[in-house]
């Protein structure tokens, strides 16, 4: 199936009100005492990945980025909402054909490859189980995959431990591509690598996208990487998407105060020394066990108003920018003066 057909207006792979909860502590006592003892890692996410696009998912640790990725990939069941693939609802138990369509590359290439299998072994197993190519061509296909990610053919007989971090990440990418997916989800694919090696992997992802017409969901905390590689950016905070927009629009006209803080916190090569100004954002994110009422960002928000305590803002767009969505009561409006907010420094320690 080509990327263009089958995909409705809602995108190739989409989340509709997806929530993923983790039980915490005794569930029996939770019921007896009438408390909620669950961690809301992903708490109502709407997101679509369009054919051929590179979408970034950014946010602090604990914001639910990786959990959302696992759910999208079918590696974790969802507790609410639906995930659709080409407009069809899919659960965590997917048919082999559906599973092939969404593949994932993990952060740590040291722990995500089986140390007991050679590189060829990893690829051959996949190619055979999923009948990607006729039996006779499995070996040739393995070599083709390795050359696609820039590894020599001899790598087929080697074990993961014989490779450097960057090379292992290439193997992980080859493994994901073996099934000819339509969507590749890469969870912090370069953050475990050295700077000079990161560039090779980022370039590889960019060229594979162009060559194979893949859709890419890139999870990263490095906004420089995101700006370099992605067409659209979704910002996640405490289990929710708080802003989505085309990359340059998000970076030039951020509408959510959290996005603004995130941008202000980026260390910049040309910016020079830090001045005495207050940090872009104070305090730590609240625990996902105790998500604040109303707008979940209000405890750290410089412009929070009484209304933010009561009303949970919806992810909405303005008429002049239908592609730009933000979940803030004051988005697409003049910014209220900072300092009038309710946030206190270090509220959440």
């Amino acid at each position, binding site marked *: 199936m080509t990327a263009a057909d089958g995909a409705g207006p809602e995108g190739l792979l989409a989340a509709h009100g997806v929530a993923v909860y983790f039980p915490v502590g005794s569930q029996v006592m939770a019921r007896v005492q009438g408390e909620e003892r669950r961690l809301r890692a992903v708490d109502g996410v709407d997101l679509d990945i369009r054919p051929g696009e590179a979408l970034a998912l950014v946010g*602090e*640790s604990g914001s639910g980025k990786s959990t959302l990725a696992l759910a999208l990939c079918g590696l974790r069941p969802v507790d609410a909402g639906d995930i659709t693939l080409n407009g069809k609802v899919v659960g965590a138990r997917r048919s082999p054909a559906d599973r092939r369509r969404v593949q994932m590359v993990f952060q740590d290439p040291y722990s995500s490859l089986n140390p007991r299998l050679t590189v060829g072994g990893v690829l051959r197993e996949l190619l055979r189980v999923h009948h990607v190519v006729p039996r006779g061509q499995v070996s040739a296909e393995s070599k083709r995959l390795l050359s696609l990610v820039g590894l020599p053919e001899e790598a087929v007989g080697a074990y993961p431990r014989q490779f*450097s971090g960057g090379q292992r990440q290439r193997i992980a990418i080859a493994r994901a591509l073996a099934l000819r997916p339509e969507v590749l989800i890469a969870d912090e694919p370069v953050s475990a690598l*050295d*700077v*000079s*090696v*990161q*560039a*090779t992997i*980022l*370039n590889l992802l*960019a060229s594979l996208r162009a060559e194979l017409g893949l859709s890419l969901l890139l999870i990263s*905390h*490095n*906004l*420089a*990487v995101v*700006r*370099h590689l992605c067409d659209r950016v979704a910002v996640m905070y405490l289990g929710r998407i708080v802003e989505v927009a085309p990359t340059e629009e998000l970076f030039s006209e951020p509408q959510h105060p959290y996005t603004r*803080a*995130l941008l*202000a*916190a*980026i*260390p*910049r*090569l*040309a*910016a*020079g*020394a*830090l001045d*005495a*100004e*207050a*940090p*872009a*954002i*104070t305090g*730590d994110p609240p625990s996902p066990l105790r998500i604040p009422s109303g707008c979940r960002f209000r405890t750290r928000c410089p412009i929070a108003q009484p209304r933010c305590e009561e009303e949970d803002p919806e992810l909405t767009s303005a008429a002049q920018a239908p592609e730009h969505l933000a979940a803030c009561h004051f988005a697409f409006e003049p910014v209220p003066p900072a300092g009038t907010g309710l946030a206190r*420094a*270090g*509220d959440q*320690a």
Partner: protein
Amino acid sequence: MIAAGAGGAAPGAGMAQGGTVLELRDLHVRIVSRQGTVRAVDGVSFDVAAGEALGLVGESGSGKSMTLRAVLGVLPPEARVTSGEILLDGVNLVTRPQSELNRIRGRKMSMIFQEPMSALNPVMRVGWQIAEGPQVQLGFSRARAAERALELMRRVGIPDPERRFRAYPHEFSGGMRQRVMIAIALSCDPEIILCDEPTTALDVTIQDQILRLLARLCRESGVSLVFVTHDLPVVAQICQRVAVMYGAQLVESGAVADVLLNPWHPYTRGLVRSAPDFDYVRESLVPIPGAPPSLINPPPGCRFHPRCEFAEEDCRVSETPLRLLPGGRATACLHYERCMDAAAADRAARA
């Protein structure tokens, strides 16, 4: 200021605000392994002035952390300083007995590690961990040391210090744990703090908070910093000077803005060009070809020559010590003029 080679101190070359606190002279660290002797640090010399923050950058395996560990005297058991001097206030730490080192370590210098969770004692209340230094090193009474710990917790921005004093490290977030580490590092009013990737494990928003805190403390108390990291933008924000390490040697040093925006060594230029820059989106990134050198059998001549686009015949044979150049800068590149021209072209392409 950074001197060229052993004993080549160049007066007036740096931007020293005060006297020299830490001075490394031709430091060599060797690790004996089954595969052979690893030259983990190979003739590194630099100075850190009072109140100055020096960034030490390089990739993993470049010897930056090993240099830091040698200074602190906490090398792994199989590693040894084989020659060179580490002078703290003029006292050579390499030749001092362990007992004296223990005293100096607590009082005059301290360290902040990358992973606060593994550097803190998990079964000791954080307040007492901060108070331990003053008690042991400065002879403070329990009550006075506790008082000091509370004051430090306030200074590093830990909210509600009276209550948090009795908490354990696991009750703190990553950013708060790093604040505890900073409080411990400051507890005996050191002259210099060695930081090994202190913000690498943190989120960008928390990193911003910690960097601002370190910059403020540096300014307020005049403590010097040696800041080891691989993140060039972080160095640009917190350090005045930077020294770049490659293959266990220093290859370039100078003022941060000079070195990072106008590199005079092809390796530094390679680092700058391979990292995605938020303010400059390019068609594609330019990786450094090849792999870092073996430290058991390093390539002869300049260690970067197998990966260098400007390499000439002489780069393969002659040793390339750090040479001092005008403007307080130093480079180990024999043909740095070419790198200068290339860097100027990079800048022109940017504009």
